């Protein structure tokens, strides 16, 4: 059962060629660039969405933090489009691979933290000790805060991987169950099918929400450090 369940998550290769590179690059085809004032419908929709997201997410930052706008907007577009494309039948979702999510989370988190340490050293170090702690608790609390700092990139990556993988697995399992039940009891199969529809709607929402959460947390880490 194990082998059958996870075959849709192995990296796609064809004749030894890494097809996965093409799959990761595919969403870029869906976001055409344009240097006109008035564009076609696709580009106008994307520009509207981008403006909405950037205003909502970057308004809390100061000037220094707002230099990260391009990075964070590309991030949310990439994760959102990759997750949504993964909901198409038979497609491969790169964000189910922990390696890729770690590759996104660690550099972004490290960039924010190192910026904080270089430019506001005292304030960054002060984050390790919350205000008003009783004196005997200080050593333990510093250790706990250090651990919580280093857990942040791991949590970012694992959260995204686990959410998307779990969603895909659930869809696969419930779909298989529906198929198996049609020959045994059509009523139960109908109920299972309704569950599948609801789950797919949930997965669309999760795809976009996870992108948002990832980017929001990176921007929060940035806000702490600029």
């Amino acid at each position, binding site marked *: *059962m194990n082998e*059958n*369940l996870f*075959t*849709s998550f192995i990296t*796609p290769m*064809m004749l030894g060629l890494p*097809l996965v590179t093409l799959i990761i690059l*595919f969403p870029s*085809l*869906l976001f*055409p660039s344009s240097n006109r004032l008035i564009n*076609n*419908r*696709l580009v106008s929709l994307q520009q509207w969405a981008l403006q909405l997201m950037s205003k909502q997410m970057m308004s809390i930052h100061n000037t220094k933090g707002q230099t990260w706008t391009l990075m964070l907007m590309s991030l949310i577009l990439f994760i959102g489009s990759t997750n949504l*494309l993964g909901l*198409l*039948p*038979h*497609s*491969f979702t790169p964000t189910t691979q922990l390696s890729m999510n770690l590759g996104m989370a660690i550099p972004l988190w490290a960039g924010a933290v190192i910026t904080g340490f270089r430019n506001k050293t005292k304030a960054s170090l002060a984050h390790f000790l919350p205000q008003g702690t009783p004196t005997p608790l200080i050593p333990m609390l510093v250790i706990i805060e250090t651990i919580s700092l280093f857990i942040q990139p791991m949590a970012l990556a694992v959260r995204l991987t686990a959410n998307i993988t779990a969603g895909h697995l659930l869809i696969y399992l419930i779909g*298989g*169950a529906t*198929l*198996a039940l049609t*020959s*045994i009891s059509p009523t139960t199969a109908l109920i299972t099918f309704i569950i599948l529809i609801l789950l797919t709607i949930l997965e669309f929402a999760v795809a976009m929400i996870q992108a948002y959460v990832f980017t929001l947390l990176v921007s929060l880490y940035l806000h702490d450090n600029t």
Partner: protein
Amino acid sequence: MASVVPLKEKKLLEVKLGELPSWILMRDFTPSGIAGAFQRGYYRYYNKYVNVKKGSIAGLSMVLAAYVFLNYCRSYKELSESLLDCFASGGVSPDRVGLVHRLI
């Protein structure tokens, strides 16, 4: 009958069947040539279906449908093997055989 336009500059649909092998051999297979071919193809599709005044959902849907089809072709082998296993164990996928036996 001799062609008036030189063979190298004809587009594919204007090449006669007998001239096809020599046309293919004359194409530019360098990396920049292949990149140019992809770029021309992309802009042909984009300007016809997306970059128009009243573009519809069809422009995007055709791309997504082609993506689904290509992914299906990629995973055809595994899918056909799992279907074979399914029919071999009587209409139920092999990892669910135990479940079905218990339900009956």
